């Protein structure tokens, strides 16, 4: 296996103010599939149609919007133990703890840690495979390209998140030197190329699996992003968002960073979502792309060539 260690984003836990409108948004408009909920209804577990593991998005009803934590799937229990030890030894993280198997349904034990930008992250190795319902002669046997019964926008998967926080240097050091990520793209000042304003990090062949922008805050969520296969599907998502009177932040447009096609929009608690198509394939020998701060406009919104006010000021 060439892709080892941290495999991919595994789950994101999003706080919502009211569960019922949140479920309408994430299930009927966005088109995720519910796989479980707590008996008291306080957490609901969802996944994209092409994700095989039990869940990738968890909604938790709370008094504040934002992100509780972000989980990464690693390749094996041995890697989980090794990385837990290396995170501890790095001294970069706080609030280290093991979360028992079963705290998330159908999920093994998780190692949790708070990174320098204030976000809680987790690693885990095991989650029950429930499949993508495409097989015609049993799971993963002679599959159709997509399953029946999809609702709404229907992204294939939870793809990545963009997070805001202050100690970007510490977080990037952790992800690159301890967790094995690469910097696919970065934003720096023209006159100070060693000072990171933004870092777009990958653990895979994707242009980014997580991104951070330096802001004087701790632990904030800018957006959670969901994958669509094409620009045409992004345009169709725009139609669905308008038809359902979902508040669009910006788009459909293109990002300079990652080249992805995008719409930013808001869930009923003000958490920003994105649907994302395109982008390029990343290999570890690909050079890091650099954007200067004076080109931040086209880096973020390639067509408008300037940031909208909400990009920097609206987050949860």
């Amino acid at each position, binding site marked *: 296996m060439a892709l080892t260690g941290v495999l991919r984003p595994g789950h994101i836990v999003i706080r919502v103010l009211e569960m019922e409108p949140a479920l309408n948004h994430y299930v009927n408009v966005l088109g995720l599939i519910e796989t479980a909920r707590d008996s008291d209804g306080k957490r609901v577990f969802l996944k994209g149609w092409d994700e095989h593991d039990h869940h990738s998005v968890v909604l938790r009803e709370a008094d504040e919007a934002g992100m509780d934590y972000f989980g990464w799937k690693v390749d094996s229990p041995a890697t989980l133990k090794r990385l837990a030890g290396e995170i501890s030894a790095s001294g970069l993280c706080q609030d280290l703890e093991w979360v028992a198997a079963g705290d998330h349904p159908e999920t093994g034990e998780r190692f949790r840690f708070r990174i320098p930008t204030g976000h809680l992250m987790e690693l885990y190795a095991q989650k029950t495979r429930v499949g993508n319902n495409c097989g015609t002669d049993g799971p993963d046997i002679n599959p159709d390209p997509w399953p029946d019964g999809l609702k709404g926008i229907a992204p294939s998967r939870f793809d990545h998140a963009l997070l805001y926080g202050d100690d970007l240097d510490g977080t990037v050091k952790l992800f690159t030197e301890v967790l094995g990520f690469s910097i696919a793209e970065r934003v720096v000042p023209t006159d100070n190329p060693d000072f990171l304003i933004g870092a777009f990090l990958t653990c895979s062949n994707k242009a980014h699996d997580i991104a951070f922008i330096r802001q004087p805050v701790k632990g904030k969520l800018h957006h959670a992003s969901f994958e669509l296969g094409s620009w045409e599907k992004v345009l169709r998502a725009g139609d669905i968002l308008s038809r359902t009177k979902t508040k669009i932040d910006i788009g459909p447009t293109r990002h300079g960073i990652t080249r992805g096609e995008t719409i930013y929009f808001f869930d009923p608690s003000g958490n920003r979502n994105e649907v994302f198509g395109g982008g390029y394939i990343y290999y570890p020998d690909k050079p890091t792309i650099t954007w200067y701060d004076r080109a931040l406009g086209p880096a973020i919104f390639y067509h408008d060539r300037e940031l909208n006010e909400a990009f920097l000021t609206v*987050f949860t």
Partner: protein
Amino acid sequence: MQWFRVTIEETGETFECSKDDDLLSGMRNSLCRKIPIGCCNGGCGACRISVTSGEYRVRKMNRAVVSESEQASGCVLACRVYPQSDLQLKVLGRKWLLRSAASTQPATGGVVEAEQQQTEAERRN
């Protein structure tokens, strides 16, 4: 449908809002743009206002941007307020502002500065 008149104290601008619409939607349906528009869903705090007279009902809003005591004193998010009578309000805006992400200096004290700016803005109000 029942409609109410919403007046922004600072400028005297008014717009109509139905009792089934939140104040921010009512403003967005008018030509008025005095209240800042953010997520429109009770999360980001951009549309923070102080209702100075009139009756209204509210939906749940992010406690990180409006505390219980603030809400009790009439500080609310326009996107979560539904008028039950004519209303008067003052525009407060978000509790904190961030310096540009493109700042070339390491971020230290940006939030504190913004809080001071906000305090000054409230004093002017």
